[in-house]
């Protein structure tokens, strides 16, 4: 109890609260401007949070991302352009509603069900994380090895498109994580005499490159189009919400559950959650023929899913140090910098910090109601911000921000290299998320692998001798061989017929 009181004290103090309010405004802005994503918001926040105590730093990221995932819906409804990829699944549907004169209903539903999804994900996070941490305390290097491998494998499998390209992306990420001195033998690898590379490629500059610079490059090569806003005046968005809620409470619940689970799976975040929830909604709907014509049902479900995914992603991130999405991948980097190393021990050593994170999650989702309302009202202004002024300023911010982490110009080269890498990967259909996960988890994978090998004297069977390790190991192998097995089964059944 004393810890919870301390946590409240840490959150409800002027400094933290003002950080939360500022990052709420920042997140709404970033989310509502097409081309700027919630992950980019996180990457841009990191250099500033670098100079804050842990709780406000985390609060800034939690608040900004929750707001950004909601406000990404606004340009979807008004301009048919998703503000963040997480809104892409139902952009056409929202716009169709706006064209039918239901802009207020769709924006109100976006806001209300974002809040509901966000709160649901938060409740699951609060209830499950401490329990999982209890279990995680008993883990040895064998369990951690399998857990990391399982996370990496599911990140590859869940990527939309080509699993082979996902594996390549993952391996390249692992390769980058091998750079530097940070390995069990403390031998400088892939440094080629560079002093800067001894400390590996900085995580934060790399993320800024992958998620911000690559977006700026994408903006630079897309032909400039004038923003076309369909509707000029927006009325009362809260009218009729109660009816929607009563009619679609099952959809809202289903979307929230699916979102939380997808969020918790490594490598998949809010965007995949929204696509899946929209598809599920259409499949299970009583009126699937209405989907695509401006029907709110799928928006309710997917809108709840993407916000609940945000909180879900924090479960494995806090308990095991395995990020659930690319936002928590950055968060883990921040936690290490702040000395709040994720893992079960943090629940024992610094429970007040964890409780503070939980409180911030609730607060951020509740603040979304007034802030989101203001953002909808101000939508016209926000959407008219000239991007040809904004993007260069963001570029300069990336430069200063990456420089600020270690005070070296080397970081600026890192953002350039990884910006180009992120751009070319995307262009060639190589998903970025597995690479990021590889970089974050590489040293954890290697460390637990090597120490397990040393402990067992090279006997691979030892990896299956402890019950939980065996379970995780079999699950991992199943994920690996499932595509092969299912293809084999299909060929067998085809040859029979």
């Amino acid at each position, binding site marked *: 109890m004393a810890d919870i009181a301390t946590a409240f004290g840490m959150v409800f103090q002027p400094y933290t609260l003002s950080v939360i309010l500022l990052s709420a405004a920042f997140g709404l802005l970033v989310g509502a401007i097409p081309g700027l994503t919630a992950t980019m918001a996180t990457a841009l926040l990191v250099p*500033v949070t*670098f*100079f804050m105590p842990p709780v406000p730093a985390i609060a800034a990221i939690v608040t900004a991302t929750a707001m950004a995932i909601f406000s990404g819906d606004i340009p979807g409804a008004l301009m048919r352009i998703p503000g963040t990829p997480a809104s892409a699944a139902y952009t056409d549907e929202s716009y169709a509603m706006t064209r039918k004169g239901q802009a207020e209903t769709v924006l109100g539903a976006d806001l209300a069900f974002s809040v509901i999804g966000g709160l649901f994900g938060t409740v699951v996070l609060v209830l499950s994380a401490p329990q999982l941490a209890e279990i995680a305390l008993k883990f040895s290097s064998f369990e951690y090895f399998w857990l990391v491998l399982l996370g990496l494998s599911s990140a590859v499998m869940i990527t939309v498109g080509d699993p*082979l390209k996902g*594996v*390549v992306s993952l*391996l*390249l990420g*692992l*390769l980058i994580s*091998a750079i530097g001195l940070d*390995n*069990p*033998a403390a*031998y400088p*690898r*892939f440094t080629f005499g560079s002093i800067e590379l001894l400390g590996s490629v900085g995580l934060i500059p790399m993320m800024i490159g992958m998620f911000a*610079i690559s977006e*700026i*490059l994408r903006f*630079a*090569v*897309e*032909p*400039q189009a004038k923003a076309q806003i369909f509707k000029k005046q927006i009325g009362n968005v809260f009218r009729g919400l109660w009816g929607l809620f009563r009619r679609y409470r099952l959809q809202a619940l289903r979307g929230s559950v699916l979102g939380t689970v997808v969020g918790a799976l490594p490598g998949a975040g809010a965007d995949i959650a929204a696509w899946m929830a929209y598809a599920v909604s259409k499949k299970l709907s009583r009126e699937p023929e209405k989907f695509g014509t401006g029907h709110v049902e799928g928006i309710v479900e997917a809108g709840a899913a993407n916000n609940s995914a945000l909180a879900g992603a924090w479960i494995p991130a806090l308990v095991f140090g395995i990020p659930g999405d690319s936002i928590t991948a950055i968060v883990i980097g921040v936690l290490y910098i702040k000395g709040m190393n994720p893992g079960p021990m943090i629940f024992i050593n610094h429970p007040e910090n964890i409780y503070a994170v939980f409180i911030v999650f609730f607060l951020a989702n509740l603040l979304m109601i007034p802030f989101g309302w203001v953002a909808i009202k101000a939508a016209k202004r926000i959407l008219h911000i*000239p991007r*040809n*002024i904004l*993007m*260069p*300023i963001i*570029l*300069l*911010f990336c*430069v*200063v921000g990456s*420089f*600020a982490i270690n*005070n070296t*110009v080397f970081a*600026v*080269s890192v*953002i*350039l290299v990884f*910006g*180009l890498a992120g751009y*070319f990967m995307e*262009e*060639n259909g190589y998903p970025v998320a597995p690479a990021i996960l590889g970089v974050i988890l590489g040293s954890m*994978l*290697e460390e637990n*692998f*090597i120490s397990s*090998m*040393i402990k067992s004297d*090279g006997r691979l069977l030892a990896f299956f001798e402890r019950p939980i390790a065996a379970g995780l190991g079999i699950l991992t192998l199943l994920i690996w061989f499932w595509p092969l097995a299912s293809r084999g089964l299909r060929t067998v059944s085809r040859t029979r017929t």
Partner: protein
Amino acid sequence: MKLSDTVMGGLLLVLAAAIGIYVSGFPRMPGQNYGAALFPGLIAAGLAACGALLLARGLRAKAPAFEFAPWTRAAPLAANFALVCGALLFYIFAAETLGFMATGSLLLLALFLKLGVRPLSATVVAVVAALVFHLLFYKLLRVPLPWGILQFMAGW
């Protein structure tokens, strides 16, 4: 630029071979069988396997080896791309001598003008933005941004 699976596969095989050769020179941990070379060695093996699969798939698909996105043929867009990269390179090489404020303003000005911002507002916003970033990071967060040619202002 899009690379076909064949080209990517080939490149990955070369990369895997290079890593393999490079890590084979790593010293062993005394008294241990598993050293610094094991993990990158496994990654190299994985990359080689993926490279071979991609190569095989690419040879079957017979896609063109290189494909250029439409923007590469639109000169202004290609120039935008080059300018963003150039701006970062310019910062990397000029920041120390010119200082943050001068480099930052020039970088912004060039990008603004190229992206069609009117010259007057471009100049004003470029200078003001660089100044604001400098105040924010140098004064508030104490990041040692270089002064460069504006060193005389450091004492103000």
